[in-house]
């Protein structure tokens, strides 16, 4: 098994290659405005570092967000087209699930990422691999409960979420290495249409901003 994984749902453009036992190579660049420019060169670099030809890839896993839409779509479009070009299957994984998995936490906790517009994307977990609520989008002060919370969305709004709840040393952004490891486990277990692996389609959570226009403005000055 060779799983190529990437996520573009946060400021991190992260790519990794996993063989079912370990991460062979990984590349992460934090740049919220250049997902489209950084992702394919990142894929190319990771395959080069691992000494793997693209034809050897067996599966693709991609973060499905939620995350800022323009960057998010880069990852999903890339996963769909690359999977078709290589003739392999592609799977989606909720980006918040990747952070939860990566945290290694066992008790109940929350994950939050930046949704911009002074809001966060968040979900609640019973453990590292078990999402029990969400994902949802809310103002940081409206994220319910008093559970420990991790992710860049918490770090951005310590006063609103309560600084004491923020888990010290937990990851802020998802890493493709964690995404690849989680996807590889699920694929190996045959759970390719379960709670974790989904179709590679975006989780938006908001409708597009658009208003039905009123009547045209008057141009005649009275």
């Amino acid at each position: 098994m060779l799983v190529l994984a990437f996520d573009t749902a946060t400021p991190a453009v992260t790519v990794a290659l996993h063989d079912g036992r370990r991460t062979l190579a990984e590349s992460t660049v934090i740049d919220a405005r250049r997902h489209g420019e950084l992702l394919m060169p990142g894929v190319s670099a990771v395959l080069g570092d691992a000494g793997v030809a693209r034809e050897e890839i067996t599966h693709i896993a991609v973060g499905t967000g939620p995350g800022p839409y323009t960057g998010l779509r880069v990852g999903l479009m890339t996963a769909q087209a690359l999977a078709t070009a290589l003739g392999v299957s592609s799977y989606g994984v909720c980006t918040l699930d990747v952070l939860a998995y990566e945290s290694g936490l066992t008790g109940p906790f929350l994950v939050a990422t930046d949704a911009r517009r002074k809001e966060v994307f968040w979900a609640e977990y019973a453990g590292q691999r078990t999402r029990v609520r969400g994902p949802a989008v809310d103002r940081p002060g409206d994220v319910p409960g008093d559970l420990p919370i991790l992710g860049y969305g918490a770090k951005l709004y310590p006063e609103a979420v309560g600084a004491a709840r923020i888990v010290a040393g937990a990851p802020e952004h998802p890493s493709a290495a964690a995404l690849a490891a989680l996807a590889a486990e699920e694929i190996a277990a045959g759970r390719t249409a379960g709670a974790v692996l989904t179709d590679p389609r975006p989780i938006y959570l908001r409708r597009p901003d658009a208003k039905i226009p009123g009547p045209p403005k008057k141009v005649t000055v009275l």
Partner: protein
Amino acid sequence: MGTPVKTEPLVLGIETSCDETGIGIVRGHTLLVDAVASSVEEHARYGGVVPEVASRAHLEAMMPTVDRALREAGVKLADLDAIAVTAGPGLAGALLVGVAAAKAFAYGLGKPLYGVNHLAAHVAVDQLQHGPLPKPCIAMLVSGGHSSLLLVPDVAHGVTSLGSTVDDAAGEAFDKVARVLGLPFPGGPHIDRVAREGSGSAIPFPRGKADDGTLDFSFSGLKTAVARYVEKNGGSMNIADVAASFQEAVVDVLTRKALAACRLHGVDHLLIGGGVAANSRLRALAQERCEQVGVRLRVPRPGLCTDNGAMVAALGSELVSSGVSPSELTIPADSSMPITMVTA
């Protein structure tokens, strides 16, 4: 020097600069398929293209449209010689979906990537219908987003801008006037239809910049003049006459300036492209005026004038056979890509 140049390359073109997800496949100058999925109906109730709606629709439509194009052309991805994609100008988020798909196809298949200029593609598409472009030719591109006069010595190697709109694009004026007249979006086809029952000389609407000696356009004053007319004469106006007279003002200026460009640069071939080139009155008046001065007119059929993937594939094919270097995987989607850049 290196690789032999393929004269009849098989190229897949991807267009997502606005609201059409276009996938075209060409072999040389031969069009194999032109598949378009449009989100125009989702935008109609907003009276214009909503970028986020368009971007979401591109992601949804991309793979089904690629599948359909390959099936109808009887081509496998592995057969392709190159992938071409609109890199700009256009809506940034919409362009990015097409560019991401093109990079993934190119990298996954190990084929060259060509990020191309949308306007140059509107010029190159005519080769699919009328054969090789005369060198040089003058091209007038008129759409909802652009109104440009171009000098095209060789579309694969460079295009010079001679003039463009200083305010609204021609198609934008059609959309805005349609709204004032209570006609649906997009306005062009509806005004064209309604105008057939009216007189183009009924109302003397202004011809912006018509005689200013430049090759630039202005349609904002015309749009306001129509709005004033409608406010003043609302109840009693003849909508067909308003539509026809507005349309006449637009196409009068467009054709005058296009022929002035031909005269000024001693060029006897004029090409008209872009969505507004589907307008029946523009096609008729351009034909009439070109004949008067001995200029040969080329206008692709309406389906090739509006945004589509075939035009991107056509330009890609031209670039491959001209030996132009492919684009890097690092290219951005460039919403304001200048016309002087044919490739990214």
